[in-house]
């Protein structure tokens, strides 16, 4: 029974992939394309969060910091060392992994609360630091100049990771990242690391008694989460050609990442993707209609949603689907 379930899932995944690959050729509106890229981006961020938060049960409320590390590292390396953002992306991911180890190693030995608090604190401090640090752009942020072609127009270049004429490559890169993360999550889910993650989430002392090195696996989850979040940060920086502390380090971003995963269903393979497809269009819609008046209406909704989901339907939309199917 499990076998057909698995190949059923694979079929759905392939169908979805096919649909999404073909989609931009059917619907070519730039607005829609931008929305889809955002959806893939947040799905990826939520999937990365899901590894440490949903599977291993370690609540990080500061994952945005890895997003910033990725974006800033590749941008700074580009500006100061003329390194291609592809290389910068790898560098950013590695830096993010080191940061995850440095933070996780002391804090993971203790309760989940300590970890959550530590992630909030680091995020806040990083925001304050970066906003005041002129050498990395301060509050104004960093702009990436266009790469221009021979006639002076902004060009499309794979080497420098910019696509200014035809933005389609961004779409496919974001899509590829999303499916890579889905694949990774599915692999983790079925194999030893995923089992150990879930064991830790359920009862870490029982896991210890079965030979699980709890600290090592928590760090593994955190490091994986950090690395992919950083890669997405580079993608984001290269997409907007701009990066600043407010858009990459604010608590709002960390909250949104977690919320997408929670809404969709933590600890599942498809939850974060589902959550993104539901929440991001809603967010964009409400911003268009309720306006970005700085009155934080979106945060009111996010806050209320988080409470309601935690209290009434902690398993998210995926859980709702299971309940409706009568499992």
């Amino acid at each position, binding site marked *: 029974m499990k076998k057909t379930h698995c190949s059923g899932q694979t079929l759905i995944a392939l169908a979805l992939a096919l649909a999404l690959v073909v989609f931009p050729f059917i619907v070519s509106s730039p607005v829609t394309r931008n929305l889809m890229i955002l959806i893939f981006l947040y799905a990826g961020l939520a999937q990365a969060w899901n590894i440490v938060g949903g599977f291993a*049960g370690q*609540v990080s409320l500061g994952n945005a910091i890895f997003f910033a590390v990725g974006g800033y590292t590749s941008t700074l390396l580009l500006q100061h060392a003329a390194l291609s953002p592809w290389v910068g992306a790898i560098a950013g991911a590695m830096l993010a992994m080191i940061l995850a180890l440095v933070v996780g190693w002391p804090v993971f030995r203790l309760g989940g609360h300590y970890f959550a608090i530590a992630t909030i604190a680091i995020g806040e401090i990083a925001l304050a630091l970066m906003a005041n640090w002129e050498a990395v752009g301060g509050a104004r942020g960093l702009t990436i100049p266009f790469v221009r072609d021979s006639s002076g127009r902004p060009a499309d270049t794979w080497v420098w990771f910019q696509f200014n004429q035809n933005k389609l490559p961004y779409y496919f890169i974001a899509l590829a990242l999303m499916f890579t993360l889905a694949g990774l999550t599915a692999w983790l889910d079925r194999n030893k690391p995923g089992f150990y993650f879930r064991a830790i989430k359920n009862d870490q002392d029982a896991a210890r008694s079965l030979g699980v090195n709890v600290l090592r696996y928590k760090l593994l989850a955190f490091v994986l989460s950090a690395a992919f979040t950083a890669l997405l940060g580079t993608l984001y920086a290269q997409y907007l050609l701009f990066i600043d502390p407010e858009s990459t380090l604010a608590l709002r971003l960390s909250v949104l990442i977690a919320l997408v995963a929670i809404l969709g269903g933590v600890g599942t393979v498809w939850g974060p993707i589902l959550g993104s497809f539901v929440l991001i269009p809603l967010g964009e819609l409400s911003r268009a209609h309720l306006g970005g008046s700085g009155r934080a209406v979106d945060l009111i909704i996010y*806050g209320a949603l988080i*409470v309601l*989901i935690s209290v*009434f339907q*902690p398993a998210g939309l995926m859980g709702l689907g299971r309940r409706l199917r009568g499992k």
Partner: protein
Amino acid sequence: MRAREGRAVETLLQAVASGVLIGLVYALISVGLSLIFGLMEIVNFAHGEFLMLAMFASFWFHLLLGLDPLVSLPLVATLLGLVGLVTNRLVIAQIIRAPMLAQIFATFGLGLFLRSVAQFLWTPDFRLIQNPWLSRLFGGRVEIVRGVFVGVPQVAAALLAAVAFAALYLFITRTKMGLALQAVAEDKETAALMGINSQRMFDLGWVLGSACVGVAGAALASFYYIYPEVGGTFALIAYVVVALGGFGSVPGALVAGLVVGLVEILSPVMLGIAPSLKYAVVFSVYLLVVLIRPQGLMGRF
């Protein structure tokens, strides 16, 4: 040479005085958090927003009813006690047996919700209570030692915090209800066997903890800027204080509050770093405590 040395000593004493004063307030803010955790093993991630609500309550009582923050303090404390009770019944009671993920998110979401509603209703602008009574008392400043001045509102806040703290401590250690509270924190099942209703004790814990925050908020309102995000920094400090003092320890919160207050105010003076980095120092203290002595200075009640 002597004049410069004299001023250096003054600056140091000034910092120590300020550190102790704010430390007492930190202690009062944190003790509620510690109490609740000791009882239910739940961290209230909306704790900072409770403080923010208390400060805004004082502000609106002042603006709309002309009440001085000192006068409206009992009202604000009662109001916050109610907020705590309602939170416990409506939200916490639903998630007490839920996995930690749901528990963290439930209070975190609540905090986010409260903060955003405040921003929506009252705008992100900074407010200040103009000319509270305390700022007029003794001309607004007191000279404790030659050359070292502290504001009267700050001293009053510290005194209020100390009194509230002492009252709480006496309640917990000398009254029957207080001992029942300790019993439930120690061992729920055995306490139940002795006829203590843990549900009611949880209610009491939330009421007391939130009322403490109410007192602290009302005290701060006399001199601190009031805005929707104000809870954020205080909450982080509260977590550090509780971790340092020991989750569940009331005396620990006092000691830790003073330590954190002193570290915060002294670090720019003694380490020569920019004031905006003082929270980085506080957070480093958190990491250090968590590394070296995770159970904090004083463990349980």
